């Protein structure tokens, strides 16, 4: 039975030789039952520690962890109905694939006949029937990962925890397994919590993405929401490939209202929006929302440094006139070479304005009247 997960001001400190390192800093979070939630963030942001606290492998320094209504904060891993797939895969080298998958069932005293039946079922789902009698060392990396997955879900856990399960696989296998894991989630009645540092995995698979920064919550939202309404510069830069361009701008009062003045461009903000009238801000614009040519509302020039061709489109890495690095993704720049100057333009509706503290103070689309409030309808609530 899938269960909801509640974290209430969970804190985890590690002490080594008098130094206290706060890995997770008073994290509060509700994860709905049956959902697929991804913890994402750079290494050292506390995502794996949080997952290990869900598994019972670490005990929080303070705060509580509950599954549904049950407080599991101090329960050892053996007494929680969770399964976990480890980054290192962690197959038992001395057991066959069949024994590996069935080990949890064996521990729980499931009779051999039923065990074999469930193992065969799991193997069929994961397409590793041929490998059942082999030893883990004989399998490829992708097959080993499937076995680890099989061992985790064959037990019918309330919560399935995955700790960067694909970080050692190649790109092709990753995209195959991504689909596999999602299919599995649809078939299983279980709450999935997935940890990754790869924002592509987070965006493609999850119902909700939990973005962490230095042990604190940066933002919790469904992927699309996170992409369109990042609540800080950190979120905007972390989510999306290539990363969001961020340009320093000065805010100046002009004739037609407030204007943002950056390197080589001036952008006037219409009256009636809640923006500072002086000081400095940072303007964020995703590379995908830039058009080559100068017919858009806001124009700037980019000195091309490197062009990566991806087939249907190209990624141009360049710099603005003050040296700020600036990327453009477009299908109309095939002939650009290093040294060219490229005129690009964008629509204010696609831009973000960040205050000096990094918080988003303006979503372009808000100004465009597409949406009234950036915060809102997410299942996961911080």
């Amino acid at each position, binding site marked *: 039975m899938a269960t909801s997960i509640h974290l209430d001001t969970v804190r985890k400190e590690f002490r080594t030789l008098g130094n206290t390192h706060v890995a997770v800093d008073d994290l509060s979070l509700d994860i709905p039952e049956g959902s697929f939630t991804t913890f994402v963030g750079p290494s050292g942001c506390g995502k794996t520690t949080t997952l290990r606290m869900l598994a019972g492998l670490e005990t929080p320094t303070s705060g509580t962890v509950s599954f549904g209504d049950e407080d599991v904060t101090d329960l050892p891993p053996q007494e929680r109905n969770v399964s*976990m797939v480890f980054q290192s895969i962690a197959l038992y080298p001395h057991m066959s694939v069949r024994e590996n998958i069935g080990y949890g069932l064996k521990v*729980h005293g499931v009779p051999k006949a039923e065990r074999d039946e469930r193992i065969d079922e799991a193997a069929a789902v994961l397409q590793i029937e041929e490998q059942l009698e082999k030893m883990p060392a004989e399998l490829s990396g992708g097959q080993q990962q499937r076995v680890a997955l099989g061992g985790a879900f064959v037990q019918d856990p309330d919560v399935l925890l995955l700790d960067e399960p694909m970080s050692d696989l190649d790109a092709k296998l990753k995209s195959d397994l991504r689909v596999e894991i999602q299919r599995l989630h649809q078939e299983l009645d279980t709450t999935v919590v997935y940890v990754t540092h790869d924002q592509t995995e987070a965006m493609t698979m999850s119902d909700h993405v939990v973005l962490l920064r230095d042990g604190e919550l940066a933002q919790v939202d469904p992927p699309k929401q996170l992409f369109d309404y990042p609540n800080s510069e950190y979120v905007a830069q972390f989510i999306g490939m290539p990363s969001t361009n961020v340009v320093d701008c000065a805010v100046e009062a002009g004739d037609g209202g407030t204007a943002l003045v950056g390197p080589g461009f001036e952008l006037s903000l219409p009256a009636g929006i809640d923006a500072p009238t002086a000081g400095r801000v940072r303007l964020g614009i995703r590379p995908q929302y830039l058009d080559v040519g100068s017919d858009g509302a806001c124009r700037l020039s980019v000195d091309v440094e490197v062009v990566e061709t991806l087939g249907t489109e190209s990624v141009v890495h360049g710099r603005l006139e003050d040296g700020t690095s600036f990327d453009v993704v477009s299908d109309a720049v095939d002939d650009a070479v290093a040294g060219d100057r490229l005129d690009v333009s964008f629509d204010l509706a696609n831009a973000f304005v960040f205050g000096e503290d990094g918080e988003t103070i303006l979503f372009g689309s808000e100004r465009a009247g597409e949406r009234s409030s950036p915060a809102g309808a997410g299942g996961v609530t911080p």
Partner: protein
Amino acid sequence: MATSTGRGLVSHDTQKRLQRIAVYLTALLISVFTIVPVYVMVVIAIQSPATTFAGGRVNLLPTEPSLRNFLVLLGSTDTVRYFVNSLVVTLGSTVLSTTIAVAAGYGLTRFDFTGKSLAARAVLFSYMFSPIVLAIPLYVVFSTLGLLNSHFALTLALTAISAPFCIWLMWQYFQTVPIALEESAWVRGASRWRTVRDVVLPVARPGYISAAIFAFAVAWNDFTMARVVMSRDEMYTITVGASLFLDRVNIGWGETMAVSLLISIPPFLIALFLQRYLLQGFSVGGLE
């Protein structure tokens, strides 16, 4: 190597050939020093002294193999008893030392406790003592406890010699066993004991077999401890017993070599069947 590649006087192939010849020569030299004594031992053991020393010189090409020397050993010495004594204390000490090593190695790698690094250093330090340094204090201890001339005391004494290195070996070995394997078993519901039994011990097998082989070698080849702890003839181990043979009038070189051959059999069998594990375990311990 460096000079010849620089000047190009010797071709790459020639270099390789020279290298190989050097390796073979060294190996040959070393084998001469190890194999010749063993050969001499075997030849003298399987010939009667009359054949060996016929014609006033030592004959080292066996012409008339005989079991005479072994029959003398069985008939007029306590070889069998010594051999049994050796087996008893060696087995006891091997099991004890390996058990201690597995428990200590697991504890040192899996639990944090105050004084852990001190304990680890103490283990390595105690390994540096020569057995003779421990012998007299142990004699005093066993004498006080009334344990002299017992298999039990010798087993403990031998364990004191082999355990530090075995602990160190297992400590190193357990560091190579990923903790994720155990965590994965815990999450699946296995208790710590069950995890040790189902996962840790099977995975650590090369490690503890190496430790056991080492403990075996220490105990089987021991002379010092047995000499100190055992003072009654019927309690001697085979090494002590055999060393005393030559003092006797009725025992000569032939019988001594025969008993040496007997002493060599158990280590030989172990090397033959378990060398795969030995190398695996020691390479982790950084000894290869």
